[in-house]
């Protein structure tokens, strides 16, 4: 509710003007929509893929430590490095386009085509999160009682049935946890976008958080950016509360 444009130390009070401009801004709605796409695409992938990896990796196999460490590696490496590595893979005559042409398609402008840029960035977020969520699932898997599997064996269940009837129900709290964490962090993505696309081209990969950053620290429109931040915070809190309610409800019914 303040205007910082005249003096950063003595802002003027402007009431709800910033909110009005915000809700009339087409870029704001575009970034909101992009954030929704981010959530809808990234979260299911981050809930399901790590679960499959965790179930497969939770066996006694040769070289299991190597697999674990390798899959966990992207989590540890700085997101700036990851962004650079992927920018290089996505390069116009880069390695991914080589595979694309190998399959007989035209080159894709991964980061330069407004149609694909957002999805390319989402892919990096998913890639970087796999290991982290895998670990959460692995921790939860240790608590699944093994005699249930033996019982399922006696009942003649196949592998898929065993996991659907024994593993998944036991992992429900972990699945809920992963969906909360991943949806909150999907709403907060910033560095991937900053390093790879700067929100472009044509704001196609700009999310709300990036928009806040750009408004606040590039255009120095701190009041407007704060208004945007407040809107985002309200949404995140609503999601968290809903999720927590759902989990608690789930616990009672389980």
């Amino acid at each position, binding site marked *: 509710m303040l205007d910082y444009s005249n003096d*950063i*130390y003595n802002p003027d009070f402007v009431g709800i003007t910033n909110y009005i401009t915000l809700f009339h801004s087409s870029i704001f709605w575009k970034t909101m929509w992009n954030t929704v796409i981010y959530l809808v695409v990234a979260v299911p992938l981050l809930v399901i893929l790590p679960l499959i990896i965790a179930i*497969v*990796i939770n*066996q006694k*196999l040769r070289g299991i*430590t*190597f*697999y674990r*460490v*390798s*899959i966990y*590696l*992207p*989590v*540890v*490496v*700085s*997101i*700036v*490095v*990851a962004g*650079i*590595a992927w920018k*290089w*893979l996505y*390069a116009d*005559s880069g*390695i991914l386009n*080589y595979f694309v042409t190998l399959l007989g398609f035209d080159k894709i402008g991964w980061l330069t085509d407004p149609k694909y840029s957002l999805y390319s960035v989402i892919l990096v977020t998913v*890639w970087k999160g*796999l*290991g*982290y969520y895998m*670990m*959460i699932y692995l*921790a*939860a*898997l240790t608590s*699944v009682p093994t005699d249930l599997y033996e019982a399922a064996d006696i009942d003649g269940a196949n592998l898929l049935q065993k996991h659907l009837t024994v593993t998944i129900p*036991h*992992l*429900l*709290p*972990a699945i809920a946890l992963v969906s909360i964490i991943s949806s909150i962090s999907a709403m*907060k993505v*910033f*560095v991937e976008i900053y390093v790879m696309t700067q929100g472009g081209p044509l704001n196609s990969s700009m999310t709300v*958080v990036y928009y*806040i*950053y750009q408004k*606040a*620290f590039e255009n120095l429109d*701190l009041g407007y950016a*704060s208004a945007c*931040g407040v809107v*985002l*915070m309200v949404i*995140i*809190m609503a999601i968290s509360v809903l999720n927590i309610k759902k989990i608690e409800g789930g616990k009672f019914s389980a």
Partner: protein
Amino acid sequence: MLRKFFKSLFSHSFLIFMTIISIGPFLWLISTALKSKNENIFAYPPQFIPQHITLENFIGAWQQVPFMGYIINSTIVTVLTIVLNLLFASLAAYPLVRMEFNGRGGCFFATLATVMVPCQVIMIPLYLLTLRLNLVDSYGAVAGFAGMILPFGVSAFGILLMRQAFMAIPKELEEAAIIDGCNVFQIWWKVLMPLVKPSLATLAIFTFVGCWGEFLWPSIVLTKQEMFTLPVGLNYLQGFFSSNWRFISAGAIISTIPILIFFLALQKHFVGGQTQGAVKG
């Protein structure tokens, strides 16, 4: 027997596939950084293994960008942040667990609530506050470091983690300490702290990873090149070498080496630490 064989064949192929996806981008980065000037890095089909392995890109990148300075800055920020986090999180968690006072529940929920607020939203007021306190690098290196470290001196996650650790310690130990004449501070420092070492280690590792890779906040408050931390410097390098991908790759790898050593050395703790603080299924 055959079923078992297929099961393990499937598991291995799936895991190898995932491993390639996970570390492939890094391997490609390494391969690019090792290629000499005469080799076409855009060759079709791509040359996965460099023909003439050379370190010239690493040397070139190292000479043109003050990596040593970035590493030192990152180390200073990370070490101090870890120390503050361990200290404050355990100091804050102890009364939340073991002391009876009015508003304890309120304090706990206030701490919990901060987890939900996205850091980018706090960035703006935090930035204004830091400016007003003159904790930016234009007031000297100490102010610059303080501005980078203090906002991350304690985290709700750390408090929650330590709270769980303290809760697991039996009350009798404290009662015994009181009989032996310990005051509250001595109980905390001499009795409880040694017992929660594993949790302290977990917190330290988490803080290390988070802090070492932190990009947003330093990139906002830092204005001087000599204050840059590794991620900020690396992003700067990306623009500096524009599209010299050999140098960019070399720089990215140089900046990853410290955390990679740390990760491989403490690999067990990373994997184990993840389970703490997470919901047990």
